């Protein structure tokens, strides 16, 4: 009798016992298993989402806990920053499209991809600088981190998002370094994971902008 407590195996065991097969990743043969860097980045995105959910719920609780919640006017430059970040997602998509053709059309495609990545990077820097400028404008109005709960949350949320964008910039620089160093032989999985992360930064910022606009 079968004493196994699991479901009986429906699919026959793999016929090949070729254990030396390949440097290809073993798990790829499993249905549903994918690239570790892709799942890694999605798991990371999940954790970051959770962190910002915690910050946001702290904001809601804090708003209800006392009558000192006052309205602050968001610096208009934030909308320019938003545009820069969204554009950077678009340029990153262009880079992806260019680099997707890499094995066939090498030098040209790599150069195109690098160009679009450069644009992405520049827009990323524009966003971070713009966020910094927004802080300066708030400070000029006398609104600092500890001035009131609204300004506290403004600085905390934008700083946390900014740190994550900086991490994305570092990742982009490293990816570009790889492409420059190894040309067409760069690893696509790292690039794809970075791209996913970068797009998420844009989505996260849109959410935060909504929260800042409606709540602060």
């Amino acid at each position, binding site marked *: 009798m079968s004493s196994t407590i699991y479901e009986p195996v429906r699919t026959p065991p793999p016929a090949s016992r070729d254990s030396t097969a390949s440097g290809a*990743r073993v*798990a790829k043969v499993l249905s549903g298993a994918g690239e570790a860097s892709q799942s890694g980045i999605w798991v990371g995105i999940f954790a970051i989402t959770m962190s910002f959910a915690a910050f946001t719920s702290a904001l809601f609780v804090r708003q209800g806990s006392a009558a000192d919640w006052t309205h602050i006017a968001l610096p208009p430059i934030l909308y320019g920053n938003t545009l820069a970040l969204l554009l950077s997602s678009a340029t990153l998509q262009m880079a992806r499209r260019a680099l997707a053709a890499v094995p066939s059309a090498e030098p040209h495609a790599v150069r195109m991809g690098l160009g679009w990545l450069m644009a992405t990077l520049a827009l990323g820097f524009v966003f971070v600088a713009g966020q910094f400028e927004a802080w300066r404008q708030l400070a000029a109005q006398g609104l600092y981190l500890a001035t009131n709960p609204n300004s506290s949350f403004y600085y905390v949320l934008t700083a946390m998002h900014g740190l994550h964008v900086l991490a994305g910039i570092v990742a982009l620089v490293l990816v570009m370094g790889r492409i420059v160093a190894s040309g067409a032989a760069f690893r696509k999985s790292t690039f794809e994971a970075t791209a996913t992360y970068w797009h998420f930064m844009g989505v996260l910022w849109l959410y935060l902008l909504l929260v800042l606009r409606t709540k602060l």
Partner: protein
Amino acid sequence: MEETSAQQAHVHAPPEGFLRKYVFSLDHKVIGKQYYALALLAVSMGMALSWLMRFHLVWPTTRIPGLELISKAGAPGGIITPEYYLSLLTMHGTLMVFFVLTNAPFAAFGNFFLPIQIGAEDMAFPRFNMMSFWTTLAAFLVLILAFVIPDGPPISGWTSYAPLSAVGKDAGPGMGWGMNLWAISIAIFCIGSLLGALNFIATTLDLRAKGMTLMRMPICTWAWFITSCIALLAFAVLLPACILLILDRTAGTSFFIPSGLVVSDRLQPHSGGSPLLWQHLFWFFGHPEVYIAILPSMGIVSHILINSMRKPLLSARVIIYSMMSIGFLSWMVWGHHMFVSGMNPFSSLLFSFPTLTITIPATIMTMIWMGSLYGANIRINAASLFALGFISMFVSGGVSGFFLAQPSIDIVLHATYFVVGHFHMVMGVASIFGVFAGTYFWFGKMTGRMMNETLGQLHFWLTFIGTYCIFMPFHYLGLVGNVRRYSAFVNDYTGPLLPLHKFITIAALCTGAAQLIFIFNLIYSRYKGAPAPENPWNGTTLEWSIPSPPPWNNFGGKHPVIYHDPYQYDVKGSKGDYIMQDSPEPSAG
């Protein structure tokens, strides 16, 4: 995502040089051992602290020689002040919960065995893996730095309730830089744990060997996987909480500090914050943390019991589903720590219901273990004894949870020794029993030498009896109203309880001393133990298909192929009553 995959990291030659091999190693096995060593150091410190506390409770005026050297202000003349007692319990709790109960069953064993059990060469992101250990070590160093700074360790307890944790040194000794160090340490710890959890999840999802479907993973692999999902969410919430706390303490914000708060005769320059907010954020992490501590031990214990009984559990699938539902429910129960916090009493009811619901999967698991043990011809050794001890502790400690989960009863029992007894047994001792069981079971695989069995069994009986002697009376103390965190009970209504406290202290000193047997056994066996064969327990899972200790790339460059569910015991195989997971021979029937 600057990271090389496991495959790439190992395409090259094995690591050379002392630093790469043993210190900044990318090898999940070395990292697992590093976590284990850190947990061992932390548990020794935590236990020493509990000795000091127990000693002071019953002999408050007796001088402890040398203690004044550690803290002149905290123990003038070798006698612990009430404030220093609180410092000791804060550090005890923090060390134990974070650096022992999170590190040992989850990070240490998980790192070593999860990749092997799924047939991978390493974790998905070896560099992140190394980073998560070194981040955790940094957190540890920052925490114990509090012992040596003039301010001393914080007195806030491991939960660091606001607003006193947020107002700075007005709140007492240790609440200046000591508390800062605590908050910074925990924030760093969160980052390390998040990296670790991310790695565990990606590894489990993507690096499984050919044929290793999810349901063919051993129960402990499942437990580590579920735990990492919980840890990912829990630490992602504690990190923002710590950031807000640090800002309240250092930047003058008012997230947690209400208006008009006077501490030490000084009006605090904050307004409008919500002390309950800290409790909500902390316990939203804190309750799942309990399951981060206990789930891996449940997995390890199931794994060992099956091997010792030489037959499968009644249903391993239901064990896995129960662990999942415990993990799921853990997100809805944080408020049961706050029944008397001033939260809306109606919310207590809402939190009480899912709390009681958790007893259903917990009971199902216990029933499966007990039912499988019924009539089983279990192989008795140190590992299986500790596994059985785990069930005993889990049940004894868990039953008091029924009482605490009811808001009306909790009003009486809250902040008494009843609660302390409850969580020490169910979360602390039970989880540590899982670690002991895992150590006796896997030590041969980890080091290449077997642990001494006689010493192991002696260690079990002394620890088993000892921990019951320590923690069972706690429930009684709590029922008669003995409040926790008091540093002495000489002249008040708790005076008649002193003999019982003395008994507990003596039991604690003896049980602690019995752990020296374990330490001796670890060190002695590491160098002088009998050489470990490849498969000393006739196990079926992948860790038993490779040499002890495993080579640097686990499977010697081969890729295992999986043909069976993990626990093919009680069958006719070519080697005896079991068939290995990677053996192509058909299982009977």
